[in-house]
């Protein structure tokens, strides 16, 4: 009966009958101490988010379903207000094949400071400039296990546009990005069907992935334009592209070596980019339980300065403290330094658990000596402090 109800799409009935419910609700305060570069940008903001997840399984765990939503209420930056489906998925395990149909979020790659090969999901940019929060992507996905490696075949029938701050938002470009006017190279626009393939395998201490993607570039170009009121705006333009990527990670004792490299071909540009680096961990420093990791990563982008990514010839220097205490306290601090113009940005992220169900996060981001030609110039006054308290259930 329950299954029958599910088949008729009465999701909430299913959800209550066979689901496990988990997630978190969070309050986030953001403070920008410097006055804004552009008119109307806010100085401080208090927002709330809710991330519920329902999931369940049947058929002895060979069939699974999940639904994960992400909602944010923001009364200052409408660009951050949303309800997004991060996951709405059926997953079927059939021998060495795994089928996934629906909306999913996935992660490819190994590098900490940048994500080059991770092109399946669109970035939820307003949730973090590090690109680690992503929008749900509709897909048909077959994962096939072979003795010689794992193959992923993906068909992506629908494209998600990147999110951008509105006029009042911080960490935005000098002109507002008008997401209502997005343009596409393909006449199919967001209905263009994209394809991706990935091979991955572990060889002792080496993890290797090789991936291919053909379809709508998740990173937009920007065209000058006018909005409905005749104000100048930026119009995102989504090209078609083809990309081949490699990601590799090698572990040797306390060393972890990492590499991501891509070749991307599109109408506007054909180029190579890579990030390579290492992490070395000192375990139990000064006879405490604390582990200290040191990270060094270098990013190169083959495009000219004004076309390239923010990290085009940049060094990332990071430290990671894992206190291994009851509260799982962690601090990650990193410097990004542009080797051409010495523009620097600094970021600290610290978090710990409070009691059994709360988690507090503190983020500090500063931009220093930003060269006026640097892609970060628009963020020069956007140093910020962020405090988040989340309740997990």
């Amino acid at each position, binding site marked *: 009966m329950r299954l029958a109800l599910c088949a008729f799409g009465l999701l909430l009935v299913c959800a209550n009958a066979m689901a496990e419910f988990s997630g978190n609700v969070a309050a986030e305060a953001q403070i920008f101490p410097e006055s804004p570069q552009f008119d109307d940008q806010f100085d401080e903001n208090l927002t709330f988010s809710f991330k519920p997840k329902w999931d369940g399984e049947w058929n002895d765990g060979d069939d699974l379903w999940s639904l994960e939503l992400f909602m944010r209420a923001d009364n200052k930056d409408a660009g951050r207000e949303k309800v997004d489906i991060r996951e709405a998925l059926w997953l079927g*395990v059939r021998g060495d094949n795994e089928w996934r149909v629906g909306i999913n979020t996935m992660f490819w790659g190994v590098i900490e400071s940048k994500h080059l090969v991770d092109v399946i999901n669109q970035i939820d940019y307003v949730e973090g400039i590090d690109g680690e929060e992503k929008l749900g992507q509709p897909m048909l996905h077959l994962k096939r296990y072979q003795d010689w490696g794992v193959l992923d075949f993906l068909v992506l029938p629908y494209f998600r546009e990147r999110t951008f701050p509105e006029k009042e938002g911080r960490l935005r470009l000098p002109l507002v990005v008008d997401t209502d006017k997005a343009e596409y190279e393909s006449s199919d626009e967001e209905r263009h069907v994209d394809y991706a393939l990935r091979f991955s395998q572990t060889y002792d201490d080496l993890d290797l992935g090789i991936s291919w993607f053909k379809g709508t570039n998740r990173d937009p170009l920007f065209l000058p334009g006018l909005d409905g009121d005749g104000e100048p705006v930026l119009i995102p333009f989504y090209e078609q592209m083809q990309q081949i990527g490699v990601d590799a990670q090698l572990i040797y004792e306390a060393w972890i070596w990492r590499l991501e490299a891509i070749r991307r071909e599109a109408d506007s540009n054909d180029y190579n980019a890579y990030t390579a680096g290492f992490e070395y961990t000192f375990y139990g420093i000064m006879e405490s*339980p604390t582990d200290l990791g040191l990270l060094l990563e270098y990013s190169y982008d083959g495009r000219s300065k004004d076309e390239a990514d923010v990290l085009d010839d940049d060094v990332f220097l990071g430290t990671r403290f894992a206190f291994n205490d009851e509260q799982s306290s962690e601090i990650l601090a990193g410097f990004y330094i542009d080797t051409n113009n010495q523009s620097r940005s600094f970021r600290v992220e610290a978090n710990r658990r409070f009691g059994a169900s709360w988690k507090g996060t503190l983020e500090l981001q500063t931009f220093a000596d930003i060269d006026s030609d640097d892609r970060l110039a628009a963020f020069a006054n956007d140093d910020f402090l962020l405090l988040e308290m989340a309740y997990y259930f």
Partner: protein
Amino acid sequence: MFNSKFLLVIAFFASPALVFAQSAEEKGLEIAKAADAYDQGFTDFTANMVMTLKNKKGETSSRLIRIRTLEVEGDGDKSLSIFDEPADVKGTKMLTYSHGLEPDDQWLYLPALKKVKRISSRNKSGPFMGSTFAYEDLGSQEVEKYTYRYLRDEACGEWTCHVIERFPAYKFSGYTRQIAWIDTEGYRLVRAEFYDRKKALLKTLTAGDFKQYLGHYWRPGTMDMVNHQTGKSTLLEWKDYEFKTGLTERDFRSQTLKRIK
């Protein structure tokens, strides 16, 4: 002349002793091998673990972890830990392929990033989830991970125990030695003392509430690890043990970490 003859005579009488009498090291190794052999053939098991951390002030916090372990012939076990509590780490999973003296292979699935991350397994002496158990205390106990020395037999509760010293043979252990009380019938690890790098007593483990499974394998219901230097302790309560559940290598692939529930 006389001297050499005398030596020959000594050698003649001494050699049988060299052949038949066991050194304390040999006897210790023999016990470790017997304990290992006794536990072989369990194939796989699943269990639920409640971990209660207690600090010096007596404040407690708890973790809920589901464990799945697959026996691998000729190598260390494969094991999967699924974290259910605290809520902020719910859905975190840790996969370990242990290999005797070679470093283990270890992966972590981070649900917030939906990312499977290969991690360095060198951190054997570090605390597990902020508890008084180190990773090396909970890992698969292969014979070659230690050298041994037999100390004595003595009564341990209702049983008789072999008392043996174990010296970690792998690099990066947090201990210089351990003293283990292993009962002579079912090879139950009843008690263990852990000595730190400065050779001072660091921790004592007491296991109890043993139950026998499949008519052969003994598993403790409780394991209490007291750290004498910090005053902290951690109680592990093992529940719902099931053996030969039909787990296979397929259930221990890093690529499936994300979907496993």
